[in-house]
């Protein structure tokens, strides 16, 4: 049996039934990594020895009769912007290379409690700034469906690792689409929870009011299990909310009777590839057949989302990234004449181009004389975008859109044109601005065999509805069963 091909849920059943040991599962995945990682390059670090030790510990526990939770002994990968106690956390940046935080992100403590086994940390766009993972300071991750194409980003490492069978699931982070877009481009499931659903403590901040940690998995069910494990109020994150966590497994019913779903017309015009559009429309037909009522709706402020996002996200980033100054930790330049010079050189040498571009943009946006025209106005438009959704959700249970306007693009294709790259997130950004949850699931392939993603957006804290729609669709289609031929 090729264990690496299985979903977390399938692995769990085998482990629970004592048909396989955790060690066998971990070994199978490590072998898979050995086989494909050289080509995919999804990981920045591995914890092979620790993982095998953990696996043996679990096997002992299980043979000792300990109850096996749904995540117990299941291997996982995490994005490199999640702090892990005493493990390098670089955010794929030279400025944080060699940084070992003395604490773990709350989600990692929760996973540890749930029993997952950490295999390694995955590549990403530097500080999560990018849509192709090409902005990593260390390596280029390739899309397992076609090694000449990008896996999307910024959680491209996590998405590629799941798609290539290196891990059954992974954690990513999503500020403007960084979970959903790579999930779509890699043909896997990715969910961005409601802002405040999952603690951000220990997630290295890009844009604090937009960032959320979320799962990337092969199936909707795995996604639900992972979300269940990481959700909830955290005393260490004031912006995590004390809203009851639903049972995300119970809600997985393959039936959509009585559900009303909106199809926003603004998401089907500009720059969208014909094949993507077609597959998404076809998917809505399937959803309709499952009992949902689908109607066209309007989210009139959608066209301002990208501009609004790049003002707010960069403004916050310029402040969040100010701490990387060479004083306390991280990279410090070798040559320096005085304090200001040390700041300048350390940051100049430590940050990559895209990060510098965004810091400059954000600094400008907040500067005297421009503050109200840019940052102030962006905040007001953000409210309008949120109002659009509030209004739509009065009549509709969920909204369906394409996840990304295109399938995976070639490596290097957009690196020279930041604006083009920014438009990769045109359909995912609004959910971050509005703070609502969104999931991307595979809904077909283009003629070149590259996956296409369908996005389902839900009401705040209503992850269970989008999971249910995603599950119903998944159970009635075969897309999620396809694996790249790597």
């Amino acid at each position: 049996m090729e264990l690496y091909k299985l979903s977390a849920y399938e692995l769990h059943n085998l482990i629970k039934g004592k048909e396989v040991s955790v060690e066998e599962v971990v070994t199978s995945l490590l072998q898979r990594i050995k086989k494909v990682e050289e080509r995919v390059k999804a990981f920045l670090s591995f914890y092979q020895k620790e993982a095998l030790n953990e696996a043996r510990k679990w096997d002992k526990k299980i043979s000792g009769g300990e109850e096996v939770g749904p995540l117990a002994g299941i291997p996982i990968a995490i994005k490199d912007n999640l702090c892990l106690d005493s493990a390098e956390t670089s955010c794929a940046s030279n400025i944080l290379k060699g940084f070992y935080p003395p604490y773990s992100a709350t989600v990692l403590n929760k996973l540890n409690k749930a029993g997952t086994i950490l295999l390694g940390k995955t590549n990403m766009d530097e500080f999560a700034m990018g849509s192709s993972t090409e902005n990593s300071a260390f390596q280029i991750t390739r899309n397992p469906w076609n090694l000449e194409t990008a896996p999307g980003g910024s959680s491209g490492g996590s998405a590629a690792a799941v798609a290539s069978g290196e891990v059954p699931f992974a954690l990513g982070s999503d500020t403007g689409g960084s979970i959903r877009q790579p999930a779509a481009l890699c043909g896997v499931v990715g969910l961005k929870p409601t802002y405040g659903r999952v603690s951000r403590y220990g997630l290295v901040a890009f844009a604090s009011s937009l960032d959320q940690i979320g799962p990337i998995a092969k199936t909707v069910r795995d996604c639900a299990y992972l979300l269940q494990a990481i959700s909830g109020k955290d005393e260490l994150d004031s912006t995590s909310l004390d809203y009851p966590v639903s049972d995300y497994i119970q809600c997985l019913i393959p039936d959509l009777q009585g559900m009303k779903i909106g199809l926003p017309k603004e998401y089907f015009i500009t720059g969208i590839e014909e094949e993507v559009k077609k597959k998404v429309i076809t998917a809505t037909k399937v959803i309709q057949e499952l009992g949902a009522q689908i109607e066209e709706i309007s989210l009139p402020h959608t066209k301002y989302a990208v501009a609004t996002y790049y003002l707010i996200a960069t403004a916050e980033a310029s402040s969040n990234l100010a701490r990387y100054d060479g004083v306390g930790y991280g990279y410090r330049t070798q040559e320096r004449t005085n304090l200001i010079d040390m700041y300048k050189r350390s940051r100049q040498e430590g940050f990559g181009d895209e990060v510098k571009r965004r810091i400059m943009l954000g600094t400008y946006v907040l500067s005297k004389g421009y503050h109200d025209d840019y940052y102030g106005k962006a905040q007001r438009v953000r409210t309008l975008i949120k109002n659009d959704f509030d209004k739509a959700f009065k009549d509709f249970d969920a909204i369906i859109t394409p996840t990304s306007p295109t399938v995976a693009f070639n490596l290097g294709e957009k690196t020279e044109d930041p604006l083009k790259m920014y438009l990769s997130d045109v359909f995912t950004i609004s959910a971050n601005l509005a703070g609502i949850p969104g999931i991307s699931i595979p809904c077909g392939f283009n003629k070149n065999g590259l996956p296409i993603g369908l996005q389902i957006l839900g009401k705040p804290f209503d992850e269970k509805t989008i999971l249910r729609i995603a599950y119903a669709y998944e159970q009635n289609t075969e897309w999620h069963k396809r694996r790249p031929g790597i």
Partner: protein
Amino acid sequence: MNYLVNIGLEVHVELLTQSKLFCGCSIKFGMPPNTQTCPVCLGLPGVLPVINEKAVEYAIYTALALHCKINQLCRFARKNYYYPDLPKNYQISQYEEPLARNGYLEFEVENKLKKIEIERIHLEEDAGKLIHGETKGNIQEKELSFVDYNRTGIPLMEIVSSPTISSPQEAYQYLTDLKRILRYLRVSDCNMEEGSLRCDANISLAPEGERMGTKTELKNMNSFKEIREGLSAEIKRQSYLLDKGEKIIQETRLWDAEKRRTRSMRSKEEAHDYRYFPEPDLLPLEIDKRRQQKVKAKIPEMPQERCQRFIIKYGLPPYDAGVLTESRNLADYFEECLESFPYYKQVSNWIMGEFLRLVKKENVAIDKVKVTPAQTGELLNYLKKGTISGKLAKLIFQEMFKTGKEAEEIIETGGLKQITDETSLEKVVGEVLKENPQGVNDFKAGKEKALGYLVGQIMKKTKGKANPQLVNRFLREKISNLPQ
């Protein structure tokens, strides 16, 4: 020319909470560098601030005591600037939506009542401390600088006055009264030497008839006296320039305590653009009416009211009342003494005399004094009953102050009780008269001095424990009763 002086004061006080504003680290002063830090106050990647509710309560408490209006919804903001003592390179502060606005402080200056508006009160985190030039271990480089992050994140409350203070003396009095109130509220110890109170001033001069001149900001004053002096120097400098017809440059100036003058630090053009924006890591702070009411109920009697009450209720002279209400602890001490010894003026005299003398001499805080108010009252009872003399009472009190022992215990163990038992004293007097016929004769012959000698002999025999009035009375009686 005469100018209208407008001074505004920005006071920062460290709050006396257990922990820092956004993490659990202790705020204790004087600990070894970087021993009171954690990932949050060190601004490591990925960590998040969590507001200290006690600090919020202290700020509400102060704001209400200063008659401010509390904003039911206030917000934290990031003030962005680069400096090594600021690990995140932004300070979490409040900007457009402070915790409170529009209060006032009323105080007496040069026998007149003055009311100064408080424009705003807000919370923010303190920065760390740079230590320059020290080298450690085998680091041989010259001109090294070190950062101590112990202070980073300590809760600061900023209290901003309107620019309507019209003289350095008024500024001095405003600060004195403000400090007294803050200490009454026990929200800060307001110790300028330890940096728990800091004050910047802005000052402008306008020719009479005009409304406002160009202001300069004044920093680096380390005591209320220096603030008064610095402001005076700045008034002199500005009026000198204005007299000459020159313009005042809007700038930040530093008080140079050695040269006793102000000097330019940076001009308006060089002023920082702090790029404030709302802190996305913290939710807006909601302070509803109920919470305000709850805090308000805890506000103690303020110094001015208490002073008035002391004058009226206890019939104390205004000077006494002023001294006793200078600090809440002293006023409390006074009133607690009254519970066991209800003689207002006597208690007042004792506290203003012996008590404060020892407090000053031993340099202890009033709330750390060992002798309790009840014990002090008990001692004053002995004194009043004549069990001990005034001189002895002072000696006993010194011992009580040092050890916290009861007066009775000290008197008994030290055998210090005055001999008031008339028969035993009479016996001693008889003995002394018998042993000193010369003295007796001298006194009889009209030499009053001889009596003093005889008293001295009695004191010697009783080891100072005899009641002097009694001794005097007995001596005179006995001598006049002696056979001729």
